[in-house]
């Protein structure tokens, strides 16, 4: 006997993510899902962003890593609410993991919640966590072929930060080619060229992000 089913396999996660999203909306909270490969600069970007935007809004962070609380410790030094999730092997965060942090972070006291996903260019793009939108980082050392190799994340992101631009003089890569490749996959991508080390471009990114946060 054949049974026709026609169901999204990720439906269970999508449902929880939607519930998270409804809760965030009720609280007037803007949530971003920050993704990149390991070492592209997610935590450094957060440190820089918090320094600039903390005067304008209340920011909280959920840190996702396979192991360790190193990132949460870095963020905690900025004296803002932070929760560490250790996935214990899983390569991405999902809706349920985010839901389980709600007892550890007071959502009523936040305007912006950043979910720093596990460093990985593949899996996080497939699992919604309840975010308003996704933002990704690509560091210049990763190469301009990444959008074509990992299209889903570039396609799903609203903004792309090209990080470590201070290293360009040492590399055989051009910003123009990275931009061009990224825009082929997602012509609507908003691109920022930044260096978390020198601070270049961080203000432009922050002022855009500020405009995206709900009043």
């Amino acid at each position: 006997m054949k049974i026709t089913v026609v169901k999204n396999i990720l439906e269970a996660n999508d449902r929880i993510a939607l519930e998270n999203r409804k809760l965030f909306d009720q609280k007037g909270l803007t949530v971003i899902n920050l993704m990149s490969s390991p070492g592209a600069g997610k935590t450094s970007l957060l440190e820089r962003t918090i320094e600039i935007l903390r005067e304008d809004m209340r920011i909280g962070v959920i840190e996702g890593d396979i192991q360790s609380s190193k990132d949460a410790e870095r963020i905690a030094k900025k004296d803002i609410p932070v929760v560490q999730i250790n996935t214990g092997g899983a390569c991405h965060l999902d809706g349920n993991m985010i839901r389980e942090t709600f007892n550890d972070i007071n959502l009523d006291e936040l305007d912006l919640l950043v979910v720093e996903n596990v460093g990985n260019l593949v899996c996080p793009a497939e699992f919604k966590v309840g975010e308003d939108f996704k933002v990704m980082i690509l560091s210049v050392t990763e190469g301009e072929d990444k959008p074509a190799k990992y299209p889903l994340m570039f396609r799903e992101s609203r903004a792309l930060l090209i990080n470590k631009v201070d290293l360009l003089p040492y590399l055989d890569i051009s910003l123009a080619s990275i931009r061009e490749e990224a825009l082929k996959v997602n012509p609507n991508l908003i691109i920022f060229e930044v260096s978390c080390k020198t601070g270049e471009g961080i203000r432009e990114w922050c002022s855009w992000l500020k405009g995206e946060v709900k009043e």
Partner: protein
Amino acid sequence: MHEMSIAQSLIDIIRDEMTKHHVSILRSVKIKIGKLSAIVPDSLSFCFDIMVQGSDLAGARLVMEIVPLEGRCKDCGNAFEVKEYVFVCPSCGGGNIETIRGQDLSIVEMEVE
């Protein structure tokens, strides 16, 4: 490697459907994998086989169909196959493309007894 969690979600759906239809043997399950989804079919199949091993679902076949990526230009209405993940309309050159097929990951049909 998120194929393990996907295999688990798939098996959860299969079990729900089997209970709903009062059946106990799964012969095969057919799924569709969109070209844009970040799934490696071989690895999903490997995870599925491992997870059903030794269970009442052992021996069930996973049939996978890859769905090509198709987009529609919001500016001129042209529908086309997106090749090499280049989301630019071949007709008008616009970049306002909505994905109409090829992103989803869905279960389609189960053969049961």
